């Protein structure tokens, strides 16, 4: 069984985010990007399934960008068998991104696609159902826990309050992964360097991206500060508040 994991970078939210001169997009000049944390869980779940013998091959896939090569080499260092970079386009939203991955998945072939369940920048929607819709494959989102038997997968989908729904899904399928069975592993820098020297990244044209979502951003701004919190100067002040609220 072959699992393909699309990987995407998102702005590191630890950074101070600013709006660019257009007033409609993030100023990406000085901010750091990192792997979407849910994509990291998707990759981990795929590698765990391979290590357990349920999957034979894990393929990491990413659209070309500044950090794409490093992200793909890191995926191999963690345990992916192959890396594919999609070239020749610049997807502008989740629909075009979904189209790029769907095009490449059509030629790569897959039994399962694991996407991160969501992304902090997906105004236009979650990648998983979009890719699934283009591929005509079934899709379950918010999945934590995948097991495989024969031609189908059994997945646990999280609801609120700790409840879960269990579903059986025919493959090929797309799953939006919320959390892997264990925390995503780290790859040591030395191993990533070694992979960079020995492994190669296959390049595939991303093909026709379609017309996109059909909606565009009118404006972007940090949320207006309301009255907000009363800021306390020191621990003495904090203790006063705790006394006042009857905590101590």
């Amino acid at each position, binding site marked *: 069984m072959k699992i393909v994991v699309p990987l995407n970078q998102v702005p590191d*939210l630890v950074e101070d985010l600013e709006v660019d001169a257009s007033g409609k997009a993030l100023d990406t000049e000085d901010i750091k990007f990192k792997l979407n944390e849910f994509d990291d869980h998707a990759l981990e779940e795929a590698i765990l399934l391979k290590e357990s013998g349920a999957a034979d091959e894990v393929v990491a896939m990413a659209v070309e960008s500044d950090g794409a090569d490093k992200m793909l080499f890191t995926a191999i260092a963690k345990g992916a068998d192959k890396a594919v970079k999609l070239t020749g386009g610049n997807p502008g939203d989740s629909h075009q991104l979904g189209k790029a991955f769907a095009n490449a998945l059509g030629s790569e072939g897959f039994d399962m696609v694991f996407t991160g369940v969501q992304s902090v920048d997906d*105004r236009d929607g979650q990648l998983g159902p979009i890719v699934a819709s283009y591929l005509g494959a079934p899709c379950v989102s918010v999945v934590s826990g995948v097991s495989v038997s024969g031609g189908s997968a059994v997945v646990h989908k999280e609801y609120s309050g*700790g409840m879960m729904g269990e579903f059986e899904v025919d493959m090929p399928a797309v799953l939006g992964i919320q959390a892997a069975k264990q925390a995503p592993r780290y790859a040591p820098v030395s191993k990533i360097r070694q992979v960079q020297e020995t492994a190669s990244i296959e390049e595939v044209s991303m093909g026709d991206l379609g017309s996109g979502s059909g*909606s565009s951003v009118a404006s972007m701004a940090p949320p207006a500060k309301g009255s907000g*919190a009363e800021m306390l100067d020191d621990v003495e002040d904090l203790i006063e508040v705790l006394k006042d609220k009857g905590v101590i």
Partner: protein
Amino acid sequence: MGDILVITEHLKGEFQDITFEMLGKAKELAGVAGGQCVAVTFGSMSGKAGELGAADFVISVGGSDDFNPESYASAVQSVVSAKSPSLVMVGSTSMGMDIANSVATALNMPTVSYCADMSASGSGFSVTSSMYGGKMNVVTNVDGSAVAMVLAGAFNAETGKSAGSPSVEDFSAESGDGKIRFKQLIEPEAADVDITQSDILVAVGRGIGSKDDIELAEELAEVLDADLACSRPLVDAGWMSKAHQVGKSGMKVKPKVYIALGISGAPEHIEGMKSSSTIIAINSDKNAPIFDVAHYGMAEDLFDVVEELVEELE
């Protein structure tokens, strides 16, 4: 202007709050923009249409009471195809995520996610999305049919809770190819703590940095006779158990005092704790969105503050 469809959500025979939150807003929008506010129900939930008095009428697609990503999305797609609404409101929830983009992509409609506010604007709607973990508000103007994924807690549920007797239209919907089959509902494991009943919660987030450092928060909880809670990343990292998780996929809590340590305040977390009577946030990032919902804040290193606090109190 076309109608506004609200895709209702239910679990174990009860409409979820998100249903009423969307209905209240949909009724308001329809009042300004024209068109009707229409609730779409699944399975036998049309039997409870009397709770959906905010809707002008109800479309019942029938089918199973158990949510199924494939059959529920197929049914919604049939209704949207047939009715050509101007707006489809879906929860930005676990169930909504399986419906919204499946339908929107198949029907070539735009989706707008993370909706925190909506208003009628010109011949369409203006939608504000809370993105980048709540650090940016992004406005999209939609004109023509669109799907909006509404954040839980964005609108007041009480506004949409009104009894009535909306008429029910039985709609014969598609149910998909049976590629996804519901097996069972799994209840949460019994836990040693029920944080929904706690008076005081000390909640830790990603800012705690490592599993070992949770001990410090435990010390504070002990001194304050509080229970320990956490945000999602700590559960995903395997540092704390699910029973302690506050937020969208965790517990909704409303203690008298909620002390947030190193929690940035992503919308998914805020959803679970904003009803707390008093919120105290300690976070080294002075721009963290948590300070917008907190009543008291300290933009300091949480370790310095908590160590000093524990020392003083002991």
